[in-house]
């Protein structure tokens, strides 16, 4: 049993353990940003190549305030959201079924293996040839980009389910569809959510990449215009903004999953 004599010692021990966890990351981030700030100012790199950190941040604030920015973000976000939603709606059932029904797996998996190395974002140019540069192509490319990771992770999740779980459900007289929804899906959830996390990152990549290629409107187009016009500062500001958005979306997703599904074991 611990005595009051032991408590201050425990506290010091715990603090000694935790202090590096806070100090070291803070130190490295500060050093990195500090370097970003100083290097262009001291001429270590050309400030036409890399503007100092503070100037980029100032531009970020400026860009965020521009009316064009908001509308472009909205356009990109719509495509992204719709594409991701459709890919999820198709991918999870497909992957799950593949995991539970071997013939389907044997049929679909070789196709996935062959199409996996194809640079999906590049297909936007073909999509435009077939369907013009409208919503169909722009949403379609997002679906194409993130479908495979969703299917694969759903497959792994459904495939690895403890068989006895399914037998118990069947023994209780639960029909196949209800089994699918109430037993298989929850059991496969960790893997599915992990794949979804990856799909979020890939889908943002695909939206941005396709917009950089065919422009029109959206964040990618906005960025390309700035690049074309030699507005270095704006390009860096945009890169910073999009990078931060990607990071925040990932963070929000992980936190949302953890909070709404506290029973989930392990990381996603």
């Amino acid at each position, binding site marked *: 049993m611990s005595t009051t004599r032991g408590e201050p010692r425990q506290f010091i021990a715990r603090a000694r353990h935790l202090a*590096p*966890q806070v100090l*070291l*990351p803070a*130190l*490295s*981030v500060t050093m*990195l940003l500090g370097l970003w700030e100083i290097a262009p100012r001291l001429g270590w*790199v050309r400030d036409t*190549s*890399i503007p100092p950190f503070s100037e980029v941040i100032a531009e970020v604030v400026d860009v965020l305030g521009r009316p064009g920015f908001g509308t472009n973000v909205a356009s990109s976000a719509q495509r992204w959201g719709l594409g991701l939603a459709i890919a999820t709606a198709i991918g999870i059932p497909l992957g799950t079924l593949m995991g539970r029904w071997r013939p389907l797996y*044997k049929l679909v998996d*070789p*196709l996935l*293996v*062959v*199409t*996996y*190395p*194809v*640079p999906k*974002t*590049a*297909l936007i*140019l*073909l999509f*435009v*040839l*077939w*369907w013009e540069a409208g919503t169909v192509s722009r949403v379609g490319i997002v679906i194409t980009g993130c479908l495979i990771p969703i299917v694969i992770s759903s497959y792994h999740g459904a495939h690895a389910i403890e068989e006895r779980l399914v037998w118990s459900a069947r023994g209780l007289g639960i029909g196949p569809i209800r089994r699918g929804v109430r037993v298989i899906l929850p059991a496969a959830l960790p893997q599915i959510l992990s794949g979804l996390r990856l799909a*979020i*990152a890939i889908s*943002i*990549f695909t939206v*941005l*990449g396709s917009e*950089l*290629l065919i422009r029109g409107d959206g964040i990618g187009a906005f*960025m*390309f215009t*700035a*690049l074309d016009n030699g507005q*270095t500062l704006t*390009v*860096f500001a*945009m*890169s910073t903004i*999009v*990078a931060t958005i*990607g*990071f925040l*979306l*990932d963070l929000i997703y992980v936190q949302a999953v953890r909070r709404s599904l506290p029973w989930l074991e392990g990381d996603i």
Partner: protein
Amino acid sequence: MSPAAVLRPVVWVWWRVYPFVVILALWWFLADRGLLGNRFVMPPPGDVLDRARELFDDGSLVDETLVTLRSVFIAYGLAMVVGILLGTLIGRVRAVRLALRPIVSFLFPTPKVALYPAMTIIFGLGASSKIVFGFSEAVFPILLGTAAGTSQIEPRLLWSASSLGTSERQSLLRVVIPAALPSILTGARIAMVGAIIGVFLGEMIAGSSGLGHMMAVAYRTLETPDMYVAIVTVSLIGYLLDRTFLLARRSLLAWSAEEAP
């Protein structure tokens, strides 16, 4: 020879070949019926093959392919070196892991293509920016796989090695890396495709040579068969490299109890 024994290699080949058959059949069908557009917009596989042969004969296909391959290999090689070195440090040295965690956590979910325009500003429009882009796509899977693998090593494995006369420095190459190899190779496989995608896309968005550039130029000049040649070529390269990787992986991990994907 029993019928089953004769059939097995045939079946094996069929499952490897079947996706290509399906894709080609689908392609031919769509082009023939003009479902996605006319012959110009969607040339049938035959036309594309003819065009590929033309480009091969005049050397341009080979040239562009070599440009892309060179960038891919440099990007991938750099990613392996940096990824394994940094990943091992992160996996084995707590101070490094704590210090680098925010940076890695921030950059990992970032769409690297968002950073590509900045890369072209810093590194120019030549191959360097494509290599950097490919590197940025490839380094994270390797780094994370290496960090995961090297951080989860059974301490008693290292103890056994040290009681058999292995110094700390030796244990890195003789115990840590082999034990982490399955995880490293999983990351390395994903990285391979990442490098290809980064280089190819980089060439498409803002480049002057390579298969990606070829596709982008063909798009702008409406030489549509060239577009198909470019994307099919890069896809085939990706497929072959992936297959080769899996073969190498299977032999390197013959001792491993896990199933290879």
